[in-house]
């Protein structure tokens, strides 16, 4: 999955980001700083859009743990991206409850509208999309979310999806 050109991307953590890391680590008992790994990876991905090897190595260094301890976590959890994504990743719930109210048709519509298959990025770099598992909003389906804030959209229709994508192209989220 990992492409060579992706592996060479290097990153710089700003003082602001490092402050966030420090705040996270302060929550745990002395010596248990590894507990901060998941939240720190979220903060890192929120800044860079995905987790490059260099970013993961720098997180490992920050937490004083081995790089492999970061890789194994980043690859286990579905929210972490190990390669670049669109600026907006549309994540549609594909599980039973939402399928009963049309989630599959919404995914077909998104695929047609964006012109890219699940997991691919549009040519302008703005969008990618994928199906994800139940998002705990089954009564309000179909639903989708967009990171890094995980803004949430419920009761989707083709029209509301069109509006959403149109707005995102103008840089309007919400």
């Amino acid at each position, binding site marked *: 999955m990992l492409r060579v050109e992706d592996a060479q991307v290097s990153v710089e953590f700003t003082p602001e980001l490092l402050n966030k890391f420090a705040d996270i680590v302060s929550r745990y008992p002395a010596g248990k700083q590894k507990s901060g790994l*998941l939240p720190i990876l*979220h903060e890192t991905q929120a800044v860079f859009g995905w987790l490059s090897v260099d970013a993961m190595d720098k997180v490992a260094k920050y*937490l004083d743990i081995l790089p492999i301890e970061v890789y194994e976590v980043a690859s286990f959890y579905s*929210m972490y991206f190990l390669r670049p994504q669109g600026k907006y990743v549309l994540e549609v719930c594909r599980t039973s409850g939402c399928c*009963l109210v049309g989630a599959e048709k919404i995914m077909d519509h998104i695929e047609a509208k964006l012109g890219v298959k699940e997991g691919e990025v549009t040519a302008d770099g703005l969008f990618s999309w994928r199906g994800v*598992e139940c998002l*705990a909003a*089954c009564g309000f389906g179909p639903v989708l979310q967009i990171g890094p804030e995980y803004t949430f959209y419920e009761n989707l229709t083709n029209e509301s999806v069109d509006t959403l994508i149109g707005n995102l192209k103008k840089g309007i989220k919400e």
Partner: protein
Amino acid sequence: MGRKLLLEHINVPGINTFDVYRSKGGYASVEKALKTMSPEAVVEEVKKSGLRGRGGAGFPTGMKWSFLAKPEGVARYLVCNADESEPGTFKDRYLMTYIPHLLIEGMITSSFALGANTSFIYVRGEMMPQIRILERAIAEAKAKGFLGKNILGSGYDLELYVQPGGGAYICGEETALLESLEGKRGNPRIKPPFPAIAGLYGCPTVVNNVESIAAVVPIINEGGDEYAKLGIGRSTGTKLISAGGNLKKPGVYEIDLGLPVEEFLYSDEYCGGIANGKRLKAVVAGGSSVPILPANLILKTLNNEPRLMSYESLADGGFVSGTMMGSGGFIAYDEDACIVRNTWNFARFYHHESCGQCSPCREGTGWMEKVLHRLEHGHGKMSDMDLLVDVSKKIEGNTICPLGDAAAWPVASAIRHFRDEFEWHVSNGAEAVTRNYGLAHYADPLPKPEVVA
């Protein structure tokens, strides 16, 4: 009309703020517990209440609390399970979104009872908006002296933190959750030792569901005996039900345990019946992991008694004709739903979410997904149904954690109750891709309760 213990004030404007929540009697349980009760007395009230864990397993909360080891000089932890990833379940997200202080209040009172000075709420990472809501609520409570050092002058200290997950259903399993909270992959631990002896950082730990913790608030305010008067038999109190699927009024409802399923489904106070004038075909009553039942078995038991929304009544008939309360994730399937496609959808879910530690679960869920995929897409064989049952039996009971069982039961129950629909998929492969089997004989046998215009 049932009593609302958790959601009574959910529609009050501003109830998500400390001041409005407090003006509605919020944080009274903290005052009562910290100023007038011993930790042991709080545990005693929870025991008396008969509260059973709302996360899925239904284990009595008071009893779980009394198992917590208390070695001298060792920290104890309370960890709230807000991973809510069981398909069909969306009550915890709802509660945290609209009335976050109820959870914070429950965490303070419960942490006091357990002697925990640091507690965590582990929220699934996708719920970033809810994480922000909880962090704001915690900051407010702290500013008002309900968290931090020497709470309300009682000498009791508590810090409360919110921890995000990374997107993995398995982290709802309590030992996987603790691994994840320690910054690792969510691989469930082999038990024993149980978390009550060796949990977070090897210290004694209690893990409880959001709704269980929230229920501690009315239990302490009104007393365990009062709480136990609600409900039926060993199913005491109220329960949040997440109702979704083909319903007129999907949503989160607080019911008195013991409410007839029929009333829950069809009365206007609750789900209001099936959407679009359709008829009910099947129900998953407690989240995707519990056996699916055809309409005729969810409304009445085999003995022709009305089925009730209670732990005992839903389980009546065992796996032959019953199901389970689970997490209260209630999914209604109408006459257009395809049971084969739905079973494949669930199997894909469990295959995707298996942590991969045990071969029966890792390999078995993959096989089930594959076989169900070919059945759904018209390439199945008549022997596939027995193959699926065989695989499910080889997973069940042979794994480290209950995800294996949770993956096996939906498949086994779908074949048990809907075998002819599966067979139709095999014998009419081409047709099965373009149209559904329909209601067949699974419909509810009662006079049609709704008038179709």
